[in-house]
């Protein structure tokens, strides 16, 4: 009798405990992309603070660190399958997003990669979405800028051959640059390369006017340091992966002048309404994250926040946590007023229709004294 009573109490308590909507968060919180991973997580957390409930139930974030490894990302995805989450936010990079997407697509769980830009990611299946633009736009825009605006005729391209993002992006850049009549020379490196001296010697004879770097900061910082040490004074252009404090902090003053394309920050978002939302979010972000430095607020934070926002909005619209219904609501989403701009998934492969790519430049005095200048923003809708 007493036993069954206890059991009943446990069951009731248990059902309370389970009256929660679980959302998985799969991010690179340690390892090479730790800085961007933690910025994204902060964005998600602040968005969660503002909307902690959906359909009258608490939203519980289940956070998993993939340690910036593919195996870690797969392990996180499998953990989420077992935990019964509605959807998964992350990962930030294409190399970690693609393997996780394959697991989650098979299990029929929604995934919204916050900043994977490789076109492949969302083509894995109908459950996979992203918050970013894709690299064909990013590469095209960067190449047009380097060739038309900077007037470069010869461009050396550095790509990390064992990374889906870097390899793909360099390809798009290279194709557009050639189409615009420039000559290119591609140099390859692999993850954790620190000695670029031989590659730099290779491009010396090519006499480039500009240098494009499609990799990450763990390699980008030593790359830039050695580039300047070896007497190269050319303009270097990077991509969204260099929107990472590890770049200026790692290379110090050598990083000064680096231009990169990345997620738009509030000032560069053309839509005035979206800009207002982003500004409001920025204020909340700095109120909530006490130890945040000014340089920590960037497009990755906004992308993280919006990945949470759209998933919660889709659950609300579906009126249920049934994953299939939520997926359909997400896939039919039109003009969601996100903090990173307008979000429309209807009629796309899971990539928002209109995204803004910002152009930025680093001003670095030293590893601890640096900032980013916003140059201009370009909408992907314009390029289409």
């Amino acid at each position, binding site marked *: 009798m007493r036993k069954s009573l206890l059991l009943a109490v446990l069951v009731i308590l248990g059902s309370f405990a389970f009256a929660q909507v679980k959302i998985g968060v799969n991010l690179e*919180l*340690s*390892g*090479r992309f*730790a*800085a961007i991973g933690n910025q994204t997580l902060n964005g998600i957390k602040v968005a969660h603070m503002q909307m902690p409930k959906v359909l009258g139930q608490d939203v519980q974030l289940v956070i998993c660190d993939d340690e910036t490894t593919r195996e870690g990302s797969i392990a996180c995805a499998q953990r989420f399958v077992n935990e019964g989450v509605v959807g998964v936010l992350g990962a930030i990079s294409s190399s970690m997003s693609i393997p996780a997407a394959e697991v989650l697509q098979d299990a029929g769980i929604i995934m919204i990669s916050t900043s994977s830009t490789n076109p492949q990611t969302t083509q894995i299946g109908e459950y996979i979405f992203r918050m970013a633009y894709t690299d064909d736009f990013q590469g095209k825009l960067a190449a047009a800028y380097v060739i038309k605006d900077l007037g470069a005729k010869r461009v050396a391209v550095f790509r990390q*051959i*064992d990374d889906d993002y870097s390899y793909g992006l360099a390809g798009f850049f290279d194709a557009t640059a050639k189409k615009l009549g420039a000559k290119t020379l591609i*140099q*390859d*490196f*692999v993850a*954790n390369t*620190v*000695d670029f*001296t*031989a*590659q730099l*010697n*290779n491009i*010396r*004879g090519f006499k480039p006017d500009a240098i494009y770097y499609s990799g990450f*900061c*763990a390699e980008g*910082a*030593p790359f830039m*340091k*050695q580039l300047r*040490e*070896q*007497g190269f004074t050319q303009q270097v252009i990077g991509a969204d992966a260099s929107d990472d*404090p*590890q770049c*200026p*902090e*790692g*290379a*110090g*003053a*050598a990083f000064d002048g680096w231009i990169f394309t990345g997620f738009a920050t509030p000032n560069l978002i053309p839509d005035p309404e979206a800009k207002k939302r982003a500004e409001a979010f920025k204020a909340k972000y700095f109120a909530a994250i006490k130890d945040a430095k000014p340089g920590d607020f960037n497009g990755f934070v906004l992308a993280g926040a919006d990945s949470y926002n759209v998933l919660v909005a889709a659950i609300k619209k579906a009126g249920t946590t049934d994953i299939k219904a939520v997926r359909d609501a997400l896939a039919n989403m039109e003009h969601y007023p996100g903090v990173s701009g307008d979000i429309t998934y209807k009629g796309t492969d899971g990539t928002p229709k209109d995204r803004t790519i910002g152009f930025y430049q680093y001003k670095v005095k*030293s*590893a601890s004294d640096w900032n980013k200048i916003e140059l201009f923003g370009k909408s992907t809708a314009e390029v289409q």
Partner: protein
Amino acid sequence: MTASKISSRSTIVSLLIGAVLVVLLGARINSLENYTFARVVQDFLNALTLGSLYALIALGYTMVYGIIRLINFAHGEIFMLGSYFAFYAMTLTPLPWAISLLVTVLLGGTVLLVLRSLFNLEEPKRTFVLSLIIFGGTFFLLTFRKMGWVEGLALSMLATGVAGVLLEAVAYKPLRGAPRESMLITAIAASFFLQNFGQLVFGARVRGFNAQTILNKPLNFHIGPETVYFTGILVVVPLITALLLWVLNMFVSRTRLGKAMRATAQDAEVAQMMGVNVNQVIALTFFIGSILAAAAGVMYAIRFGQIHPLMGLMPGIKAFTAAVIGGIGSLPGAVLGGLLLGFIEIYVVSLFPTLSAYKDVFAFVLLILILLFRPSGLVGEDLTEKV
């Protein structure tokens, strides 16, 4: 007699292979456009620096293997600790005197205890002088001014050496006499532990190691119309490596403790019977190996400008490869292997630009070839004394 025949034959074969390689490389250099003499010099300097760093780390692997037949997989993490110690020494000093005093007592006390047990300094007078130097020196370095790279290097080498001894005492000493597999697995565990410990304590982020030292000053020179881009570190790294190797060689071949090390390497049991304190010798080996790893860590950080808790992984694997290629257990072998690896990495990229992504593959293919055809390594011989 047969042995000498075989060795002379294999010497001839290796000389032949070497000659063929040199001719092929020469032909390749000739066929490349833009490959000027200045570039040959530039590549050579870069390769020498990288190779020296690998050599310094490889020495630690090879010494430990020579003494207790253990591949110390945590050696890459010791290298990482070395660079972090120097980073903190160079960025946090000068410390307020109270904190400095506390650190001096803790650090100096540990260093003193370890040094005493390593070098038989039980005699009161010696202990007194030693403790005066250690406590006074540490306090002086920490309190009065910002440390430069030389002090940072010295302090980091000492602290890392002690960390290596502690690692041995905690992780490997209890397993003395256990099967070698247990030790090996423990070494892997120690490596993981230190990586995660580093992420927890130092933070998972990459940190810039941007101390403006004389080593980073450009000292470019010209060969004809071409410039060779040169910084102080390119001379200092090979020089420090050569110096440390010379000191190590003197220590092993000329001192009593060095003799004890060689004896332990040959046969630990017999050495013990002859009155050699084997535990002390093993701890000493870890101490020296870790000192060399710390030197490599600091110079690696100065050269490449950044440090992070997982930075020891790749250099660790490379240096291990270098030690095996050279002949694990042999000191000159480790240096030769390290230099060879450095040269392969630079020259594969510069002579075969399309294959540059596979530069690590070349190193590991060489490792496989060595293991297949000359398992004792380039210099190592099965029966000679190790260390």
